[in-house]
């Protein structure tokens, strides 16, 4: 077995900014990321959707780079860029020919130092974000299902249960003062990590990081709302109308154990037994064998990228001739079997091989076709911000590969019980279907 080892170096600048390098000169391309430890889970109450709206504002102008100069300078250097808002982190990233590295560092440092935006920018991006929500959620069949539908049913703490894309009234209420205050509170070097991957040596990378970011002052450690959930004692259910789609749908989510615990590693392997594509038990049983469902898939969303309560969830679109309860019963048969019998030894071995293979692809993997090493960047950033240990990228695989059948049986019994789950039924308005009881 050939194991992939990524050469990683990690330093912290005096202002608290983490810097991680992972050189690979094979192609003259650098992947650069800046991650801030703030996501939509911890955005201010009454400002749902704000963390994401704010992410858009980071492209609207900084001290020395006016609106559009950021995008323009990177595209015209032959590079691509984007940003995304997640539960616990927000990222800004670029892939550029390596001769543009200093330029990108200058731009990222400029917007870490000072944001320079006005009311017109805010109004513009508020409009853009509303169209983003419409194109991804409100005007699409099964839009936002289940990532936006599940949290209010599954969780009780506002941090975990609110609308992460934002209620339009909250987006409208967001002011320029909110933007600047959010920036001052969370967008600090001591709440961020810089990733330099690909065609840049650690020596050059650290020197340039110091040159461009070293002078940015640290700030007070940001306050974080506590995302802890009160213990769940009963199955939770919710109903959402499906405006466009033709098939009844449901999502079933089970709360996960805390990350990097033995139970968490075992749940990740169990998840593969259940959701591992066409070989996974749920797809096999519901789609291929019983043929109750048209789609049945799921998993632990972004397993390395969250730092608070989350679920393993299954998304099912089923045939209208089966009721929701019949479909759920078919799903429960699969879950009961793993709770009672665990999984087979050869099944576990197969899953481990597939996991290792998938993990390598995650590290190499791009985003949008032109973003090499997005996955490596993401994992290094999360392991640095959550654990101060980017080297986990090389060692964490062992935790998954040493899971035993007994571990699987234990976590199946412990976590896959009805009182640990929430179910959302998304029911088409246009068709007559048998409703869930």
């Amino acid at each position, binding site marked *: *077995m050939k*194991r*992939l080892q990524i050469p990683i170096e990690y330093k912290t600048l005096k202002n608290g900014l983490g810097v991680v390098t992972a050189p690979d000169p*094979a*192609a*003259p*391309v650098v992947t650069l990321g800046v991650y801030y430890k703030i996501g939509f889970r911890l955005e201010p109450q009454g400002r749902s959707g704000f963390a994401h709206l704010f992410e858009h504002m980071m492209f609207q102008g900084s001290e020395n*780079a*006016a609106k*559009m*100069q950021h995008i323009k300078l990177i*595209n*015209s*250097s*032959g*590079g*691509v860029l984007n940003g995304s808002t997640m539960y616990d982190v927000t990222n800004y990233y670029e*892939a550029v*020919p*390596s*001769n*543009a590295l200093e*330029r990108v*560092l200058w731009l990222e440092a400029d917007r870490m130092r000072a944001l320079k935006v006005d009311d017109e920018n805010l109004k*513009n*991006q*508020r*409009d*853009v974000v*509303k*169209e*983003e929500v*419409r*194109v991804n959620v409100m*005007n699409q*069949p099964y839009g936002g299902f289940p990532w936006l539908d599940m949290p209010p049913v599954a969780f009780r703490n506002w941090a975990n249960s609110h609308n992460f894309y934002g209620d339009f009234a909250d987006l409208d209420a967001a002011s320029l003062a909110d933007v600047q205050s959010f920036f001052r509170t969370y967008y600090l070097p001591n709440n961020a990590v810089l990733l330099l991957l690909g065609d840049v040596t650690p020596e050059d990378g650290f020197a340039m990081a110091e040159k461009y970011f070293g002078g940015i002052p640290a700030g007070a450690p940001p306050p974080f709302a506590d995302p802890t959930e009160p213990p769940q004692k009963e199955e939770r259910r919710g109903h959402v109308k499906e*405006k*466009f789609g033709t*098939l009844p749908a449901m999502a079933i989510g089970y709360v996960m154990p805390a990350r990097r615990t033995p139970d968490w590693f075992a749940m990740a392997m169990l998840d593969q037994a259940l959701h*591992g*594509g*066409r*070989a996974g038990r749920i797809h096999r049983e519901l789609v*291929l064998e019983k*043929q109750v469902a*048209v789609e049945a898939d799921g998993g632990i969303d972004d397993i390395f990228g969250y730092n608070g309560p989350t679920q393993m969830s299954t998304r099912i*679109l089923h*045939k209208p001739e089966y009721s929701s309860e019949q479909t759920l019963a078919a799903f429960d048969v699969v879950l009961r079997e793993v709770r009672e019998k665990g999984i087979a030894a050869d099944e576990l*071995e*197969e899953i481990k*091989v597939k996991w*290792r*293979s998938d993990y*390598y*692809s995650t*590290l190499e993997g*791009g985003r949008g076709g*032109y973003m*090499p*090493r997005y996955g490596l960047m993401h994992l290094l950033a999360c392991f640095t911000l959550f654990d101060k240990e980017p080297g986990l990228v090389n060692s964490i695989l062992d935790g998954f590969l040493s899971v035993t059948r007994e571990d699987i049986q234990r976590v199946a019994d412990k976590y896959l019980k009805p009182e640990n789950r929430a179910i959302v039924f998304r029911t088409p308005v246009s068709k007559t279907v048998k409703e869930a009881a």
Partner: protein
Amino acid sequence: MASVVTAEYSNMVPALAPERAVTWPKRTKTRLANGIEVVLAESHSIPKFHGELYFRAGNALVSGRAPGLAEMTATVVRTGTAKRTSRQIEEDLRRLGADLGSSAGQDTSAISFAGLSEFAEPILELVNELARDAAFPEAEFERERRQKLEEVKLERTSPGFLAGERLRKVLFGAHPYGIVSPSEAQVAAYRREDLLETYREIYTPENALLLVVGDFESAAMLKSIERIFGSGQGKKPTAKGSAAPPRPQGRRVYLVHNPGSVQTQILAGVHAITRKHPDWVRLGLTNSLYGGAFNSRLVMNIREDKGYTYSPRSGVSPLRQYGYFTVSAAVRNDVVAASLTEMFYELDKVRSLPVPAVELTDAQNYVAGIFSMGLATQDGLLSQLSTVELNELPADYLETYREKVRSVTSEEMLATARKYFDSANMQIVVVGERGQIEEQARLFGPTEVFDAQGNKLE
């Protein structure tokens, strides 16, 4: 649109360092005795490999029998062989750390695969088995056909699908490219025998192209491939003539009424060129400047200046026989006319005025830069090689592409825009709530209205 870095801080922006040369890996290219073309390239980023087994025919070839037949054939290909059941295939893939997909477009059918290098041989053996000995088990076919029935109903609820479907009908008419998906009745009428016949016709060695990229040694990989894929014979299918597509003249509007829409999907298009055409690089660059990049004029205008949309873009879709140019955006219902006006304004501007030198250089740097990103990942490189081989582009295409992009002049760009950004003959599709958008849509030309099922409405 101001497009130069303004003077007061241009001296603060770090200059670009000297460029490092882009070196494309050596390709090993050969043809097996039975006709299969093989192209290999090494890429050692991770201990895996990625590949495609293409057959140079797809839905268009068999459209006379039924639309989407090659795609249905590809779907059922993975569900059983003479030696393995569907479940065995899926479990074997998992055991080998492999992913596999089988699919078909208008012009190709493909088995895509990726896996750990240590299991390269058994994975390739499975791929060959699917290509040679698929069994089309009756029960598997029946299940996939019923699945497909639900899928074709469901896709009619997606604004993007409805827009694309209508535009293709308008641009291609009775040509096979005019149909992007079968109807429910057509899926219901699929027979297992049709799939078998399609399989025998398309999946032949002489029609095959095998591309593999990844962490292996090329000579050894070639030996394995010769052993695994070398047996079997089979001719290329005979190409069939098809109706010439119409070339619609004059702007016309096609409104697809999608009740309940809270946004309007705009998609406008016109005939353009294929990848093989000598103007391809120039058109790609011109498109990038117009709406093919974040930094493009269209995005600056209707997103960053006016806030009409999140998702504006333009592109050239090259099918094998024909290509077409499109511009699209999902916009707020009350700015449908305003958005179309800006789309055409920017198109006509590229047709009317030479592009300033700085903006041309910026676009050239962008297109040349992102082209080499493909080097950094195995599947990125695979996709570049696929483009070259499927379109039978020159052997030095990857090596000379950037140079070609950088040699385009402002005059050539103007000529290219005049030739292909044929704004007077663009066909405009809008998908949305009729009551809110029809009046705006009618401003842009004679208008026909359809429902989501494709029926014409009064």
